[in-house]
């Protein structure tokens, strides 16, 4: 195929090329796809999962794995909504509750994997299951409704005409990009994920680094849960289903290794956008829903294939 050939030449940027190709194809197929309105739409829609994927990426880079963010989204959303009824608490309270819930989950994940030496798959599968139960328990299986205007505006307002979700996502990205590339802590995350023994011998406190990473990921998931509950105007115990896989997929599509030590947030952003654009685009060009899944799966595989080819040649 000629397209593959072209991409092979443009080494290292495989995933960007794949992404651009995808956008070009969709623009041709639907006149509505490449419009300002739709682009804002896509960015708005990708924001929450994007924020969560930032957390999943740092966990993966540190050599871990986090299956719990979807459940954290639900628990944090329900908990925050409880404090988000009109005229009750200042808005900082639900925000704090959501983030604190996420931090608590992250701490459990971090402590059990690092000090407890339990494989992250088991730990986070466990906390995911527990989290889903807790979310139902926290609201007795009913959605938490009747949220204050202020609460709803958390994810639904605009600043200078830009939806606030997009701004929050950009902020989260900027902060974590800075941490990963410009701070010592960020360097340590890569080192621990690359070789735990060598990092330990080099004097790094591997356990605290891991715990901190899981806590950050938890906090981001908690924050995501808050935003999702605001966006959907309800604290739902079944929110965020499957988010963990989407977040990991965004990271891995973006070149983050599942074995640790390798990854970039810019890649994750592209990965998340890719997933979102596929589902937005397929909706737009009206692909029947069964076919959507088939096409979606194929595009993801193809995109990463192009990426791999370009890197190996590069």
């Amino acid at each position: 195929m000629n397209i593959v050939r072209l991409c092979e030449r443009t080494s290292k940027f495989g995933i960007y090329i794949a992404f651009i190709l995808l956008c070009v194809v969709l623009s041709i197929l639907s006149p509505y796809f490449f419009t300002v309105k739709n682009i804002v739409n896509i960015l708005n829609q990708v924001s929450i999962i994007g924020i969560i994927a930032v957390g999943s990426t740092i966990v993966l880079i540190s050599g871990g794995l986090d299956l719990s963010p979807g459940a954290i989204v639900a628990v944090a959303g329900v908990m925050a909504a409880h404090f988000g009824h009109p005229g009750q608490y200042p808005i900082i309270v639900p925000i704090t509750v959501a983030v604190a819930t996420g931090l608590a989950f992250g701490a459990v994940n971090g402590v059990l994997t690092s000090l407890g030496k339990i494989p992250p798959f088991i730990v986070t599968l466990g906390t995911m299951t527990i989290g889903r139960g807790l979310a139902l328990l926290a609201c007795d299986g009913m959605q938490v409704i009747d949220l204050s205007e202020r609460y709803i505006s958390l994810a639904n307002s605009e600043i200078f005409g830009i939806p606030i979700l997009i701004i929050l996502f950009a902020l989260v990205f900027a902060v974590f990009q800075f941490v990963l590339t410009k701070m010592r802590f960020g360097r340590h995350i890569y080192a621990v994920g690359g070789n735990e023994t060598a990092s330990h011998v080099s004097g790094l406190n591997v356990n605290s680094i891991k715990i901190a990473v899981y806590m950050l990921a938890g906090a981001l998931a908690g924050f995501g849960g808050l935003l999702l509950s605001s966006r959907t105007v309800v604290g739902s115990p079944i929110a965020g289903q499957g988010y963990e896989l989407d977040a990991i997929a965004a990271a891995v599509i973006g070149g983050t290794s599942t074995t640790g030590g390798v990854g970039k947030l810019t890649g994750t952003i592209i990965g998340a956008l890719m997933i979102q654009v596929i589902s937005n685009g397929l909706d737009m060009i009206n692909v029947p829903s069964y076919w959507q899944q088939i096409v979606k799966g194929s595009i993801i595989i193809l995109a990463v294939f192009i990426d791999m080819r370009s890197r190996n040649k590069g």
Partner: protein
Amino acid sequence: QSEDATIRVGATMQGMNDTYIRIVTNAMEERAEELGVKLSILDGEAKAEKQVAQVENLIAQDVDVIIMNPISLDGCAPAVEKAVKAGVPIFTLVSVVKNQDKCVTYVGSDAPESGKIQGEMIIADNGTSGRVALIQGPIGHDAQIGRKQGLMEAFAGTNMKIVVEQTANWQRDQALSLMENWLQAGQEFDIVVAQNDNMAMGALKAIESAGLSDSIKVYGIDATSDAKAAIEAGRLMGTVFQDAAGQGKMAIDVAVRIANGESVEDVVFIPYLPVNKSNLADF
């Protein structure tokens, strides 16, 4: 010019891997074809936020009417706000949203109604007292909440008691294992209420394998074809028919009326009907 003449309708459905929804959308597609309506049906994958996003996408595409089959009473409400703000008429299908008043109309039935009809059928068959095992959909889903609510309404003031309840997530194999476990644990009940036929069929199988089909009666909801066959054979006692195809067809008719600027009543009601051996032939 001919582009403009075509009515463009967008629909977001709660989940396309559900047999019931599939029947609805089949009918919608068929009717749209007949009327020359350009219809795009989107799969909400059982996620409220996904449906909100899809409505946003439909707005971006300037469709004439949006049909929403919401997965969540509250979670999908923002989608309605968005459509209203953008001036695109939106109405709900099969299930409702909290801010229903902002929708043009509702096509479908009343969710708790199915649970209520199921409960009434059970009382009609078994009298006002009995021990009930309840197999529910995924806890927290609107259909689970609504159907249970309707059932409890019907049971109110009777001696029907729910002795044991659990979720089987709409899944047949989970209901099957669950029922095996209950029977194994010596749970005693006379009636099994499953919130859909798929789970009812799973439970029924466990009961039959245990040789208890004479003493335990099973009820479901949906009137799927194998459930109807089971009623025919006298294995399943009853189910609740929701006119999926009728709902789908009606949805398109209503959409066309809205697009043409005609007025539509607030609710286009398509009733539930109890199904048992006596009236099986009608379905």
